[in-house]
């Protein structure tokens, strides 16, 4: 056989691999591994988003940022409060409650956490 012919024959023989009897089983095993990896990744991303959101919100709450901001600009806080009152008179009970403005910030913090979760879900889907 000529050199080129030998090479082509060997390539053909390599390409002519017999079909394994357990080809379906092998494919299922690979798919199970992919599914496991996917589930683990989802849990990991979700957990990371939750932890990040909680840490971020707690940092905001613990850093006294709100009271400092309040002290720095009580006037703007008053404007904000009246603005909120105009926009949502129903929320008056919340502003006048024992927690007052802190409750609004807490809700905002929770909203940030929720947004973090939504964002991680969107990233995951992409």
């Amino acid at each position, binding site marked *: *056989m000529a*050199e080129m*012919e*030998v*090479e082509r*024959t*060997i*390539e053909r*023989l*390599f*390409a*002519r*691999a*017999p*079909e*394994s009897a357990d*080809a*379906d089983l*092998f*494919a*299922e*095993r*690979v*798919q199970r*591994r*992919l*599914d496991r*990896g*996917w589930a683990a990744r989802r849990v990991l991303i979700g957990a990371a988003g939750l932890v990040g959101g909680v840490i971020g919100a707690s940092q905001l709450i613990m850093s006294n940022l709100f009271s400092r901001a309040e002290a720095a600009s009580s006037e703007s806080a008053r404007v904000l409060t009246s603005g909120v009152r105009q926009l949502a008179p129903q929320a008056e009970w919340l502003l006048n409650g024992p927690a007052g403005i802190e409750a609004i910030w807490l809700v905002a913090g929770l909203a940030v956490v929720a947004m973090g979760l939504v964002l991680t879900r969107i990233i995951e889907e992409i």
Partner: protein
Amino acid sequence: MSRAERHRLSSLHDVELASLAASGDRQAFGELVRRHGSAVRALLRRMGMSAAEADDLAQDAFIAAFESIAEFRGEGAFGGWVKKIAARACMRRVQKDKQLRARLEAVDLQEAAEPADPGRRMDLDEALKGLGEAERLCVSLCYGAGLSHVEAAEALNLPLGTVKSHVKRGLDKLKARLAPEGEAMEGRRGNG
């Protein structure tokens, strides 16, 4: 997976399945594994892996292929692409695992001591056993996985000239062992 879904996937071309897999469709990728799993496992066995090692490596190769499926643009065959991934993974394992390397060398010595019967017709798997480890790996990488000599040299961490001479020697041995089949093939073609 429903029968209808399986039927739908089995009617699609590899490139279409790869594109679905790139968008996260694991069922589509499963169909690709079904189509090409046997060939990848056979290649790894021909490179000297045991059946169990070949299965493990082939699984790893398919997982790696899924992770980087976006890189597959359909310019070549999917089977060839995944075979290259598997062959490179195999080379990494051979270079990392000293025991495995020693075992492969031991098999080579054993097989090399066995004389080849020039009149006996052999299949490729049998003929490959008569090659040295390096020859078998080089021939499998170049003719089974479709790597160029340069790529094989990089995968094996060997000089290019060494790879070329291993391929040459391996081909000569295979030619001698497979000659009856080659002649028979030519004879069939001549008679047909």
